[in-house]
């Protein structure tokens, strides 16, 4: 795992340990096979794929990976987690992140935010 990715995962998981907004917890799973917790909001973070690599001296020198964070919340505002997640991404990735999609699941009533960010491996 790229070190930068591990740092971000640790930082995102640390969000759940402090006093959370609206007294909800944000269980953060590191893979997509997380158990769906019975809470107002929860999130997942995962490393998606390799974006590009710079080669030099006949070997791969630098690799960039695209990763994503998903937040699911029953509240339209995201229960305060939107601000916390974007602040964490800015702290660790600078401007290398973006909100890829924001949608509403009619079947479950969940609002879904998806951020993507790139890390160097």
């Amino acid at each position, binding site marked *: 795992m790229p070190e930068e990715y591990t740092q971000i995962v640790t930082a995102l998981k640390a969000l759940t340990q402090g006093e959370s907004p609206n007294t909800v917890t944000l269980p953060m799973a590191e893979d997509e096979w997380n158990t769906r917790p019975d809470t107002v909001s929860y999130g997942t973070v995962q490393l*998606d794929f390799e974006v590009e690599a710079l080669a030099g001296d006949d070997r791969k020198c630098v690799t960039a990976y695209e990763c994503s964070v998903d937040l699911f919340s029953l509240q339209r505002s995201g229960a305060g987690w939107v601000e916390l997640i974007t602040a964490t991404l800015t702290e660790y990735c600078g401007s290398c992140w973006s909100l890829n999609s924001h949608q509403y699941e009619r079947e479950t009533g969940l609002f879904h935010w998806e951020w993507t960010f790139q890390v160097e491996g």
Partner: protein
Amino acid sequence: MAFSFQVTGINELVSAMGRLGEEAPHVAARGLYDGAAVVADKVSHAVQGIATEPFKYAKNGKKRNPSPEEKAIVAGAKHGVAKFRYTGTEMQTSVGYQNAGYAKLGNKTKPVPQIANAINSGTSFMAKQPFMRKAFSQSKQAATAAIEKTILEEIEKLNID
């Protein structure tokens, strides 16, 4: 669902385009079409890589993969290069499923862009498989090269120094 891309840093092309006058939008459109086609082709290939499993309801907190029917809808749907938009200074297009219409899934009719988006971004009950994002990211260089090649060929045809 659509993705767009911007080509920057090709100064020699920009200066040559400046001398084309009224022909510039046409030349830019031809270049952009070839570049967007590269991305659309990559999406077609990426669809084939979507992992599926027979449909089942997500249980015990586990997410499910798309069903073969969902994959077949996305693979068979109309996807490609959208209508070009010229803003006066920029030629824009997008690659995606925005005009793919509707498809019958089980006893429901669903918009194809919604199915494609559910696979690409995942849902609370479906694992994400970012085939669009992957295709887009990995075809950026090839698309830029195709645009540059076509524009240079068009400029040569017009015989402008």
